[in-house]
């Protein structure tokens, strides 16, 4: 139970006092903070609307002239809201958070490059090394850079496909029966881990490619 600093009402932990609308300094999970059910498929436009609506109600700018305790509650509640929104907005962050909620971790058993990405990772690194070694402003450097730009597009396409895969995994989670989780969830967890580790690798690759292109432009 948590007590509202403004009206004194004791209530279940929530973001906003049910009686007077004052922010409460509660500890909530990301779904609860936004008042959402624990479902992985999220409509991003609706999510943004909820976030904006709640921000309007609890943001510190709304409590600038109140006593310090309430200002502090507003600060903490808004920080929680912002963090929850950012976590749920990004599908990969949402997936990782889901693992966290179900007591799983990505890092274990997932240190190796995912098999289906092994070849891609190798190729990209080869290309980047080639671009790095090529003499600045030479024809071969320009040729390699053009190849890397093309590769950047392919990586993005792979990323988009992987995120779509992730969304499909989310839907299956939401459809799985909460009464008899068991086997279903074990398989979904394994799949989720595999997809998330793929996303993580793709992100690193895209970042490396962007950096390499950045440097070649600067040279």
């Amino acid at each position, binding site marked *: 139970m948590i007590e509202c600093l403004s009206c004194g009402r004791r209530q279940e932990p929530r973001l906003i006092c049910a009686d007077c609308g004052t922010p409460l300094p509660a500890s909530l999970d990301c779904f609860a903070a936004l008042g959402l059910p624990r479902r992985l498929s999220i409509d991003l436009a609706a999510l943004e609307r909820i976030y904006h609506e709640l921000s309007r109600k609890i*943001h510190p*700018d709304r409590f600038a002239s109140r006593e310090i305790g309430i200002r502090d509650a507003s600060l903490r509640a*808004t920080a929680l809201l912002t963090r929850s929104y950012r976590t749920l907005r990004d599908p990969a962050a949402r997936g990782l958070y889901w693992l966290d909620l179900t007591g799983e971790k990505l890092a274990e058993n997932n240190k190796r490059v995912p098999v289906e990405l092994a070849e891609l990772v190798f190729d990209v690194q080869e290309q980047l090394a080639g671009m790095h070694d090529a003499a600045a402003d030479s024809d071969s450097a320009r040729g390699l850079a053009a190849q890397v730009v093309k590769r950047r597009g392919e990586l993005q396409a792979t990323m988009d496909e992987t995120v779509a895969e992730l969304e499909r995994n989310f839907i299956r989670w939401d459809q799985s029966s909460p009464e008899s989780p068991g086997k279903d969830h074990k398989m979904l967890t394994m799949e989720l881990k595999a997809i998330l580790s793929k996303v993580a690798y793709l992100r690193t690759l895209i970042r490396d490619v962007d950096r390499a292109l950045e440097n070649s432009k600067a040279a």
Partner: protein
Amino acid sequence: MERIFGIDLGTTNSLIAAIENGAPRVIAAPETGKTLLPSVVAIAPDGAVTVGERAIEMEPHLTVEHGGQVSAVGYPGGEYGAVIRSVKRYMGLGGDELAPEDRARYTFADLAGPVVRFQIGKRVFTPSQISAEILRALKDGAERALADNEREKVERVVITVPAYFNDGQRQATKDAGRLAGLEVVRLVNEPTAASLAYGLNKLATGNVAVYDFGGGTFDISILSIKEGIFEVLATNGDTHLGGDDIDRAIVDWLLAGLPETVNQSRHVWNSARMAAEDAKKRLSDLSETEIVVELPGHTIRKHLTRDNLEQMAEPLIARTLKRCELALADAKLKAGDVDAVVLVGGSTRMPIVRRRVAKMFHREPLCSIDPDQVVALGAAIQASVLMGGQGDMLLLDVVPLSLGIETMGGVMERLIHRNTTIPTSVAEGFTTAVDNQTHVDIHVLQGERELAKDCRSLARFKLGPIQSQPAGVPRIEVTFLIDANGILNVNARDERTGREHSVDVKPSYGLTDEEIERMLEEAIDLGEQDLEERLLISSRNDAEQILGALRKQLGEFGALVDRIERARMDEVAERLEEARMGADRELIAKLVEDLNEITTPFAERIMDAAIKLALEKKSVDELS
């Protein structure tokens, strides 16, 4: 409820504004009628402070440079005083963080310390203390302007900061407010404030780029506006890129070929800088202009076309556009997705800046509000939001730099990424590495680089005391919270006992709480004096200074004055001597002014003599 005021604490000029009858308005100081207060602070060896236009007036007459030190010839006793410009460039920085050109400009005490301190006479001043003087001048000016109808006090303020200011620079700005006796209700990013001033909330939905090119800093912010919510998507910038750099490029061109002693003379450089700045401004309207710099025994006369100027400015503008690209990439937008571009800062008056910005964003930028006022007006609107006066409007700003901690091997582990909406928080678990360890050291960093040593050290703190336990058993959860001002707060909790740990965060740069308290006590002593009494003391100090200076100058350079001139000086000086014993402030002020006027030609002659001395070794031919 008392009003909250908006303050633009600028590198070059500062302004104060408030909402009046529903619309934001900049408040002019009643004496000068001017809305812009130059961010220039003159400090006499005895601590007497002058701010704004009058401080600028003191600059050429009262200061000369020798031996690398800026000294005040106008002050008695031959002690050093100083006139400080662009103090914002020094806010929240340690000595090792100063750009070389900023380091050379003034004399500092202990550059190795966590905060730069100006050495002025026997006293030292932190940048926050100097900035507090500017804030106090704005506060006093506004209170005098409002005195007639309501005797309103300026106590609560919103202060704007460059979006790219780091934690230390923000903290230093807040400290300055406290030292000026103000409650800083909120720090707001300048570009964000500017977007408020343009009333873009009427634009129901869209993306806005704010291009803020001021005297000393450049900022770009990309915002998304939806039904009154201003959400900053990304921000980027350069705290050392501004119109001053364009002036400097012109000065280098003007003084090219001159001998070094002349080149480095503060007087020569200052004259050239002022001429350069004027020419730059003229070339916003004209296609060519003549620049004349009068030096003793020599005149520099050069012809500058707008084309030449644009060539000099080009590389600097290219740097700003690079920053725009980075911000767009962070916002995951293309230039064409931007629905409106807002121009802020005096440097955006240059036609080439407008052309380049229009080209980059494929649209004509908005510039209908005076770029010098737009930030202050926006600050007043944010102040009104804080008072509940703007309906549903709300600003969601971001933190400009990533925040993290140093982990094993000196690697920076990012906990909060740059461009994360604030306020935000992140909790991180810590434990011990060896048995019975009683403390865990935590080093907080800010920056985008991979290695801790390349990031800016923000703070260090010790967690503990921790109960003696085997390694890895204690679980302490540390919460890093960034508030709506972009300033970090830390607290820690033992996960087993739920007990809060006290966290004594020692900022790597900036002032400790104790230092602030001490400065505050000093400031309150001053604040409690009656305003009238302060003004009287201040005018007595003025009188003392000018009389002392005159005595000293007549002693050293008496030969430069003829008999008639000398008689007039003596007469006015004598009357001033008498008046300063009395309590008629206006009489004292008038006589100081008179004496100043009579002695100005003399002061100029002394200056010329000093410059000539410096130039003597070089032939005049070398100068042209």
